């Protein structure tokens, strides 16, 4: 049975993705081990693991990026497999290498495929050879600014600078004229170094208003590779998606089939195994270009799971255990429409400025077709050490307009207090006539959302009314018992336990 796949799996990550991976392990009956930094002693991913190991101080370099410490945690606890999640070490080829040396199965691609695809420069060359369409730009990187200037001129401004080791918008800069090039190059290198420990960057033509379309692929160790259709990730701020959906409104069945076939071609050209994502840009004329392949489970994988009906983490584990792709992966279809909203600790009313603080209230939305993948709980501190993603809200509905209505309802139901989020901003994006019409592209937010009204005067009276009820609610302290201090959370709150008189 399934429980024989692995004895125990170490999840080398934190927050929502660590929690989600552990749920996949549980569904296969496999015990899990969490690793955590000193800042995460009270984190949700630690709480739900069967075991946990402290791996170091808050700084990622000394904890979640510390390969040696993570491998030894896996050894100490008797793990025979390791899942990297996304971010941190997920796309660092040294991790699968270290796993191999330690006799631990890495749940992800091999180090060679990861190294190739992780280098955006090398992989461009490889994919050009495989006949996959590419955006015009530099063939390789360079330390010389003159090379960048030349390439920019030949591709034509605007151009974009990207980190070779990059992803998620970090180390990325759009350059609209030559005078900005030097500054942008320096900033991109600095960010790339901070984010990936590697400041190699390259340059491409910047497409105007493209859609970002990616294909999920899954490849086993027996030569089978399938794609699980597309995700559209066009709604971006800071070059990072905040709303994803599938199916894309831009794809015809014919275009979907061609792009899917190219996605499989990319994976096969790279000798890829396990789950991965092939990213394309799609321009207005229906031409598409290979952007990069992400060699990890993606933040937005749940929308594929809901529409295609697979559990990608379960499939990752099965592939890593050496099983061939199951029959259910050979007759895949898309059913209904799914949308994901990323819940970051950031202020949607103030330029997405990161927000830190304590979560003083937390309650999740619920209902059919609503899924929350979260890494937080009431009482947690959101600090400065890690990526500000707190949770992902995913809805699935029969069609796109129902999915939009359901997501709107779910975002309104979702209560998070103490740190700021972009919930209101995302509700407004989802209900913007251009979004409803399916006309999404990567500059959507800049073009359509910058002039939005953010007033809330109509709500202040309502808020004051609720605050009054909060202020008026008296404490009920336990009356009996020998220990006057024994008041459980329950005894101090609750609609049915309010005293007869108010305050003073």
């Amino acid at each position: 049975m399934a429980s024989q796949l692995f004895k125990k799996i170490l999840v080398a990550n934190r927050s929502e993705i660590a929690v989600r991976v552990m749920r996949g392990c549980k569904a296969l009956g496999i015990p899990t081990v969490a690793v955590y930094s000193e800042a995460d002693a009270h984190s949700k991913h630690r709480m739900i693991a069967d075991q946990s190991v402290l791996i170091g101080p808050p700084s990622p370099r000394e904890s979640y990026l510390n390969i040696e410490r993570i491998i030894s945690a896996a050894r100490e606890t008797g793990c025979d497999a390791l899942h990297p999640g996304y971010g941190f070490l997920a796309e660092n080829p040294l991790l699968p290498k270290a796993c191999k040396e330690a006799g631990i199965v890495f749940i992800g691609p091999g180090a060679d495929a990861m190294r190739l695809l992780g280098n955006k420069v090398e992989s461009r060359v490889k994919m050009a050879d495989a006949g996959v369409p590419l955006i015009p730009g530099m063939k390789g990187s360079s330390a010389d600014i003159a090379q960048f200037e030349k390439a920019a001129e030949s591709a034509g401004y605007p151009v974009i600078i990207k980190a070779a080791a990059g992803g998620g918008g970090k180390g990325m800069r759009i350059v609209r004229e030559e005078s900005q090039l030097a500054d942008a190059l320096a900033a991109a290198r600095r960010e790339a170094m901070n984010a990936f420990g590697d400041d190699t960057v390259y340059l491409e033509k910047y497409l105007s208003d493209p859609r970002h379309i990616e294909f999920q692929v899954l490849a086993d160790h027996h030569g089978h590779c399938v794609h699980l259709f597309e995700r559209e990730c066009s709604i971006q701020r800071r070059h990072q998606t905040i709303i994803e959906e599938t199916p894309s409104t831009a794809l015809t069945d014919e275009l979907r089939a061609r792009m899917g076939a190219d996605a499989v071609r990319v994976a096969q050209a790279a000798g890829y195994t396990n789950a991965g994502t092939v990213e394309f840009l799609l321009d207005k004329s229906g031409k598409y270009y290979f952007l990069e392949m992400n060699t990890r489970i993606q933040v937005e994988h749940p929308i594929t799971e809901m529409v295609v009906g697979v559990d990608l983490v379960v499939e990752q584990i099965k592939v890593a255990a050496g099983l061939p792709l199951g029959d259910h992966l050979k007759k895949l279809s898309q059913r209904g429409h799914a949308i994901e909203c990323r819940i970051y600790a950031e202020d949607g009313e103030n330029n997405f400025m990161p927000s830190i603080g304590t979560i003083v209230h937390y309650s999740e939305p619920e209902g059919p077709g609503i899924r929350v993948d979260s890494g937080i709980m009431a009482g947690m501190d959101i600090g400065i050490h890690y990526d500000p993603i707190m949770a992902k809200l995913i809805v699935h509905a029969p069609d796109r307009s129902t999915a939009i209505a359901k997501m709107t309802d779910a975002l309104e139901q979702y209560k998070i207090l103490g740190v700021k989020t972009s919930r209101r901003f995302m509700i407004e994006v989802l209900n913007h006539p251009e979004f409803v019409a399916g006309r999404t592209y990567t500059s959507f937010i800049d073009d359509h959302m910058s002039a939005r009204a953010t007033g809330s005067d109509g709500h202040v009276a309502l808020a004051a009314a609720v605050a009054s009820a909060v202020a008026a609610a008296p404490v009920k302290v336990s009356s009996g018992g020998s220990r006057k201090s024994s008041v459980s959370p329950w005894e101090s709150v609750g609609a049915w336990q309010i005293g007869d008189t108010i305050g003073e």
Partner: protein
Amino acid sequence: MNKYQFICGSGKLDTSVEKSGQGWRVTIGESVYEIDPIHNGLFAIANGERRLFAAGVKHKGIYYIDLGRVQLELTEASDAASIGVADEQHKVKDKVFAPMPGRVVKVLVSVCDEVKERQQLIIVEAMKMENPVSAPAAGKVKAIHFAQGDQVDTESPLVELELP
């Protein structure tokens, strides 16, 4: 009956609260809100025909309120002074603070520079991102208290401006 005065942004609101069934009746001007506490900070509000599900919590003197689409932070007028919250209209705009603790990666202005409202002054890296810190109002840079590479918190001003 209890009476409160809340501050939200630049506005002030007077409310009066009385017990009503298992919840509260709140009156603000002409409007009456029936509020049922549910559990753990969740409330059901009825205002005439309209019903709404809200969350509300008081933490360190601030009332955090979630109305579904909109989230607001309020303080009681009587608490405002003691917890250091000033009315919006009197907010000091000549000191610029970091929005969160982090590291200064770039200083974009020099002392004596004239800056426009919203002009970027300093870039602070935190949570793996570069976050620009902008001028809250137009003015002249009087002092810069941190240099590139410095760790900063949210308590000490990064930049001081001389407002016109």
